[in-house]
């Protein structure tokens, strides 16, 4: 297992970090999505194509590299559809589609993915040469900026030309067609196309939007079969990607308050010299160290040890999601009154951290998943936490 960055990954980190520091610092995040920055991110750095296989024009990198990039975009609170496009690209690794993958790789196309991966309330009907979708997705990440929406249906709509039109109901009460037995299929909808209504939502997170998407006979394209295992794997990959962003939010929050504690004076002393502040920052650092370890491990399993991925992904969300919010919260509180103002950036991190924490469902779902995985069997590596142990002289 590899938990430290390779020299190449460190280079990638530096490249993304210095690009964002110049083009998209956190202070700019409140201005929202800047398509020009997004274009440069893909053009100069090729970030959207990072995990797209080389045969589709991407860099063919792994989750370890994507995690490095997402940590930086998270630290910068980068607005816009970068994370959503990464989610979609992760889904496409399981049901490759040349048109979409090359579009993403070339930075021409932004995309998003329905969450959960197999959403409730979608109905698909095979019509003419294609499929149409009906139903509402109440919260689609970056749904206003994305060009294409991916979603998984529980099973393929029945083939065209049968007596009754094939119908596949996602999460509904209807009996699944025989095709459902083979598991979910991935479909794509053009969000700018007919039958699609997008209603932007007011969001806690000022730096990244969510959209209600209403589909009323919207044409969709079936990309391929994910299967139950594939759909679960996509959900796990999404969880790891989000945890990487959360690691960045956590780290940037801690960096900001540590920097402030070195310059802010109260009662004649820098606030960082008070144990009341210092010890809390030390505890926050401990969370960072563990969060980074958990994310590196999860990304490594995604690339190298798929059998461990479900466990590592659930751990990543259970640990990092919580740690990220706690650190962002404490970083805001330790700023004192100025941290409560609209002008200060602290609340941007706090709100992103909360929005991320609940993005994939109430956090207890990740704990429940861990409980179920523990019941099912021991994780492969159960090294004790007990080294190093201290000694007295």
């Amino acid at each position, binding site marked *: 297992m590899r938990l430290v960055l390779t020299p190449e990954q460190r280079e990638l980190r530096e490249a993304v970090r210095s690009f964002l520091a110049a083009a998209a610092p956190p202070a700019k995040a409140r201005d929202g999505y800047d398509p020009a920055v997004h274009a440069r991110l893909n053009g100069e750095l090729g970030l959207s194509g990072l995990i797209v296989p080389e045969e589709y024009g991407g860099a063919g990198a792994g989750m370890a590299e994507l995690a490095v990039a997402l940590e930086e975009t998270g630290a910068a609170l980068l607005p816009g559809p970068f994370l959503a496009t990464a989610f979609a690209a992760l889904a496409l690794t399981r049901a490759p589609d040349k048109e979409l993958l090359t579009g993403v790789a070339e930075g021409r196309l932004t995309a998003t993915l329905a969450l959960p991966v197999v959403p409730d309330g979608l109905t698909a009907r095979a019509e003419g040469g294609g499929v149409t979708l009906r139903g509402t997705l109440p919260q689609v990440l970056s749904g206003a900026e994305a060009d294409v929406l991916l979603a998984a249906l529980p099973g393929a709509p029945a083939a065209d030309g049968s007596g009754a039109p094939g119908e596949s109901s996602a999460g509904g009460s209807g009996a699944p067609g025989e095709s459902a037995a083979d598991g979910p299929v991935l479909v794509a909808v053009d969000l700018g196309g007919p039958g699609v209504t997008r209603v932007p939502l*007011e969001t806690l997170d000022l730096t990244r939007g969510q959209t209600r998407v209403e589909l009323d006979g919207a044409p969709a394209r079936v990309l391929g079969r994910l299967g139950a295992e594939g759909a679960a794997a996509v959900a796990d990959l999404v969880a790891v990607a989000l945890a990487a962003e959360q690691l960045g939010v956590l780290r940037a929050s801690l960096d900001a308050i540590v920097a402030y504690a070195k310059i802010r*004076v109260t009662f004649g002393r820098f606030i960082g010299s008070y144990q009341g502040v210092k010890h809390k920052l030390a505890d926050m650092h401990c969370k960072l160290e563990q969060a980074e370890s958990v994310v590196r491990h999860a990304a490594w399993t995604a690339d190298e040890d798929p059998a461990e991925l479900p466990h590592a992904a659930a751990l990543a969300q259970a640990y990092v999601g919580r740690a990220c919010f706690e650190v962002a919260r404490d970083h805001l509180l330790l700023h004192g009154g100025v941290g409560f103002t609209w002008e200060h950036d602290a609340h941007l991190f706090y709100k992103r951290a*909360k929005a991320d924490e609940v993005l994939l469902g109430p956090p207890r779902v990740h704990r429940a998943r861990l409980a179920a995985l523990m019941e099912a069997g021991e994780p492969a590596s159960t090294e004790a936490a007990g080294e190093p142990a201290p000694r007295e002289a």
Partner: protein
Amino acid sequence: MNLDDYRRAARAWLRDNAPAGETPPEDAIPHAKHFMARLYDAGYSGITWPARWGGQGLTQAEERAFAAEARHFSLPTYVFSIGLGMTGPTLVDRGSDEQRERFVRPLLRGEEIWCQLFSEPGAGSDVAALQTRAVRDGDRWIVNGQKVWTSVAQHADWGLLLTRTNPEAPKHRGLTMFVVGMRDPGVTVRPLKDMTGRAHFNEVFFDEVAVPDAHRVGEVDDGWSVAVTTLLHERLSISAGVGMGRAKDDPTSLEALRRTADTSDPLVRDDLVELHIRTRALALFNQRLAQEAEAGLFPGARGSAAKLLLAELTLFEADLATRLAGPSAVVGTRDGAGAGPLAHAISLAPAMSLGGGTNEIMRNIIGERVLGLPPGPRVDKTVPFKDLKVGTQG
């Protein structure tokens, strides 16, 4: 009149005069002033204040009796709370007779609204590190500087203003207190938008503002002792429960969560048990403090424990509510209605940990004044202010 009669009369007056239904919006100033005048004329404003300056000259017993009755009503007294709780008592204690004569009665009768101007951007918890300057110019003083976190400044006629008059002296020994006219030339009030997106507070800027020496409260360079009086009254009025109650439609309360959360999940039920335990433990502590106060035991710094616990509970419950709700907690349910009640709650939750003293300040107070622990070493008590590090040092 014995206490029972007093209480009965108060109850009757409130029943007949307290506004029914919704509390009017904060800016319904004429309505509030009208009510305050009737309250004063009925003898229920300034109950314990000296009769000589316009108060009723009664005791804490009557004050508590009226407060107990008033708890059942929503009185539109918010804009007067700084004057009644802090600046007015300071003038009664430390003002000149001319100042008392001029300011106290209009304050009690709601004719004039007051704010308090201590906090500055560079001097959060460390109030005495303030930098707003007042320089003598004959029989007046010229004020330049900036204050922040000023409630009701946009409505205020007068402000109690703490300034630095001697930068050569150590921090606490070069401050002077004034009454400043909030409509005077050079005073600018600007709403301060906070992280909820709303403006609960203001910034106030002073640009060459002239204040007559007759409006000085206390001696020159002795303003800190006046400020300590004000802050003592602030703490008293906080622990007397003068502040805002909990909103009835709080979406993060136990009652609300029991309606909205999936209580078929044992883990959710246990989360609610945790919230219930914390809520009840704090509620019982507050009730015990209130009973002690009624028995004449002044809670003193122990009130800081209640404030600290409330700050932590407020964060806990907003955090819990959003975790229970999941994705929908962070988006609005319909267009134009903002990001939703839970999003607002999680945005507002830090306020309680920051306003009225941070959690760290509360822990210092509990440690030193309740438990009697020794203070940390202080480097800022003897150095001339001009040589002291203050604010944010690039």
